[in-house]
């Protein structure tokens, strides 16, 4: 039956139903069901997360100053960004101002995470949706070298380098242990790269893995340890002791210089490897511009990376802030995260109970009460769902909406807003990339556009790292060594009741934590994560979220091998540990596909 959603998408669930479960390559479970028409074009999409959460259950009654350590455990990939959001929420509630150095160091931590996460996402999770690893075995190393040298000055590009790499890969594949490359749809008709481009990308896959060991040192230096760096309400935990040598935990000149050299490497890797690869790969997929989702209509970014400590105004935030609705790029709506009428979460299609489910709840008043039941048209059992009934409750993800609108979040949303604001640092790289590829601006609103925005943002973040590192060193040299404000550290300085909100732009999109504090303890705590925005089920009005919208109208070469679905959903960099959990205990290796 065909319907049109209020946000302008045509849905028809008449055709064959295809189930892909799970979709992510890392962190948690997510499942998608689509209906395809006679030509194998997707006409209906149903995205579900299968784990209930509610961090308030774990945080209630605890010390707000420790909340970051718990939120850091929600997810293994977003650790630091949850921690940062948490300390900001507590500081906002209690009116705590942090020193300028702490702001710079936090920005460096957050930007490091952006660079690291974008690199890992592209090379280790998403590139394999575009790159055929097995095809790389038939590449000519000499031609690969010529290709690599034609697009970049990156030194690791000799024929011998690629020959050795190909030999290692061959041995690896022949041992029957495809490892990280198993479960790929190798040889699929939707792969378009020549073998040489595939081999080059595999080489960079390994180089990116290796580069991780450098980039995480920044977290170790400023966060005291990695993984799970330390954070502090009121500032940052590591003191600055410029003349110190080897003092445990202190930031000295030697460590500042090490961070600086790693930043140089990050800029080089992004500009000489990541961006040329993105462009080279993109040039073979210029006719595959599906998957726009909500990016051409409704996008949102909370903004992040404050230039000045404690100033979260639009002017201070270097990542853009605002909402664009209905494709009107001429109007950027301001956001107020404390306004009960703006951010609200609905559960009409989520496995939770609200007293009145026609209404949404602002996160300060949010509740997470599970209510798992399958709709009348669902097939299978609660432990083995064969097909969901999207007319009823069908996901453990809530539906957050901004003033009732479904919005897309993430790097592409940030770039669309930055572009609409006419900010050169976002607009010029986009225009240049599109011109180089010979594509119009509308091409940005696609799966590939989302993937491209992430690469451009990685470059932007690497340069911002340089900026804030230089700013930090300049402030230290001017004699300001302050890294923490402890004036309101003890609960006796706090009001009896307080509430606050903290936000960041996580690599995958807008992240907010809302906290209520009572008698020195946490009374309520709600995290609204990016994948909840993008992966939300329908709302009471029937608006669909970004995942579902992005899958519509995509033609599939072979519905039994849903590479196109994985490609588009992976482009959002979904993180489902934040919002979902394993339902089938047999947890399939990657994606099983069932056609019903």
């Amino acid at each position, binding site marked *: 039956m065909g319907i049109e959603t209020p946000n302008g998408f045509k849905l028809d669930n008449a055709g064959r139903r295809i189930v892909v479960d799970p979709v992510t390559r*890392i*962190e948690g479970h997510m499942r998608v069901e689509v209906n395809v028409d006679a030509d194998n074009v997707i006409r209906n999409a149903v995205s579900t997360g299968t784990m209930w959460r509610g961090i308030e259950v*774990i945080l209630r*009654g605890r010390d707000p100053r420790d909340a970051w*350590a718990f939120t850091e455990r929600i*997810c293994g990939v977003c650790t630091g960004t949850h921690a940062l959001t948490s300390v900001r929420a507590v500081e906002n509630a209690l009116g705590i101002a942090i020193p300028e150095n702490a702001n710079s160091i936090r920005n460096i931590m957050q930007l490091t995470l952006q660079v690291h996460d974008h690199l890992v996402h592209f090379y280790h999770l998403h590139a394999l949706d575009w790159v055929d690893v097995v095809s790389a075995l038939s590449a000519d190393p000499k031609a690969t070298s010529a290709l690599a040298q034609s697009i970049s000055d990156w030194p690791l590009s000799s024929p011998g380098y690629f020959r050795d790499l190909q030999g290692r890969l061959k041995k690896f594949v022949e041992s029957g242990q495809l490892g990280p490359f198993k479960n790929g749809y190798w040889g699929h008709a939707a792969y378009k790269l020549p073998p040489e481009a595939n081999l080059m990308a595999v080489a960079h896959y390994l180089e990116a893995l290796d580069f991780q*060991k450098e980039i995480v040192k920044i977290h170790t230096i400023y966060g005291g340890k990695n993984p799970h760096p*330390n954070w502090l309400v009121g500032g940052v935990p590591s003191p600055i002791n410029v003349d110190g040598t080897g003092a445990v935990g202190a930031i000295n000149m030697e460590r500042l210089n090490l961070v600086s050299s790693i930043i140089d490497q990050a800029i080089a890797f992004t500009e000489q490897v990541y961006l040329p690869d993105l462009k080279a790969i993109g040039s073979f997929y210029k006719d595959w511009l599906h998957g726009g989702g909500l990016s051409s209509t409704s996008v949102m970014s909370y903004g992040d990376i404050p230039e000045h400590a404690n100033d979260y105004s639009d002017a201070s935030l270097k990542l853009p802030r605002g909402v664009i609705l209905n494709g009107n790029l001429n109007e950027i709506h301001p956001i107020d995260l404390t306004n009960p009428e703006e951010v609200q979460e609905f559960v009409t299609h989520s496995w939770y109970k609200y007293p009145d489910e026609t209404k949404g709840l602002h996160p300060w008043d949010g509740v997470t009460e599970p209510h798992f039941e399958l709709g009348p048209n669902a097939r299978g059992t609660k432990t083995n769902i064969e097909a969901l009934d999207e007319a009823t409750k069908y996901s453990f993800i809530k539906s957050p909406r901004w003033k009732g609108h479904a919005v897309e979040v993430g790097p592409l949303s940030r770039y669309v807003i930055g572009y609409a604001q006419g900010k050169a640092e976002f607009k010029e790289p986009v225009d240049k990339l599109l011109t180089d590829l010979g594509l119009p601006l509308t091409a940005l609103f696609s799966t590939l556009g989302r993937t491209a925005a992430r690469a451009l943002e990685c470059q932007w973040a690497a340069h911002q790292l340089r900026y804030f590192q230089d700013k930090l060193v300049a402030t230290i040299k001017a004699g300001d060594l302050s890294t923490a404000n402890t004036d309101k550290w003890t609960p006796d300085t706090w009001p009896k009741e307080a509430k606050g909100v903290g936000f960041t732009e996580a690599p995958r999109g807008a992240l907010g934590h809302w906290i209520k504090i009572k008698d020195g303890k946490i009374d309520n705590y709600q995290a609204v994560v990016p994948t909840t925005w993008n992966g939300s089920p329908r709302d009471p009005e029937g608006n669909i979220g970004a995942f579902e919208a992005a899958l519509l109208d995509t033609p599939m070469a072979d519905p039994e091998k849903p590479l196109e679905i994985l490609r588009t959903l992976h482009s959002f960099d979904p993180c489902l540990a934040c919002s979902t*959990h394993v339902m089938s205990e047999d947890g399939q290796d990657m994606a099983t596909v069932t056609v019903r």
Partner: protein
Amino acid sequence: MSVLVLGIGNILWADEGFGVRAVEAFDRLYAMAEGVDLLDGGTQGLYLVNRVAEADRLLVFDAIDYGLAPGRLKVVRGDEVPKFTGAKKMSLHQTGFQEVLSAADLMGRYPRDIALIGCQPLDLEDWGGPLTVPVAASIEPAIGRAIDILAEWGVAPVRRAMPLPPGSGLLANDIDWTAYERPRAGTG
């Protein structure tokens, strides 16, 4: 020689936290020999590959489903380790960890020796819940197995005269095992 003792899992999901709680308890009770690193790996997945690749020998604590009685331990060594996810998988971080091992292999830096101390969980669905009784009871025996393996590798740990106080070791800020599971006002 460098040895990495790694605990993996998510402490927010009851017995999923076995591996992390095991290294936490190990650290409180024992001082490691020189060259031995204890690491709370959480659910870091591929982010751990460099730590694994840098280790000559790797000892991992994790919750594993071998269809045993809850709390039962199983030690897997050498070539058999990467196969453990070929058995029944419990959660994606295991897939992640198998990927970590094979990614290290592809990088050409696979540890010379690997041992996995696995524990059969009882409950992985209890969000915010404690380790279950049988799994909690298997932490000290699991540490015993680890000591034997480290001794075999020539890096036996030394029992501390006094255990480190709770919250002063690998996990702090109220997420250490004792504090995490304490009853709290306003909940329950």
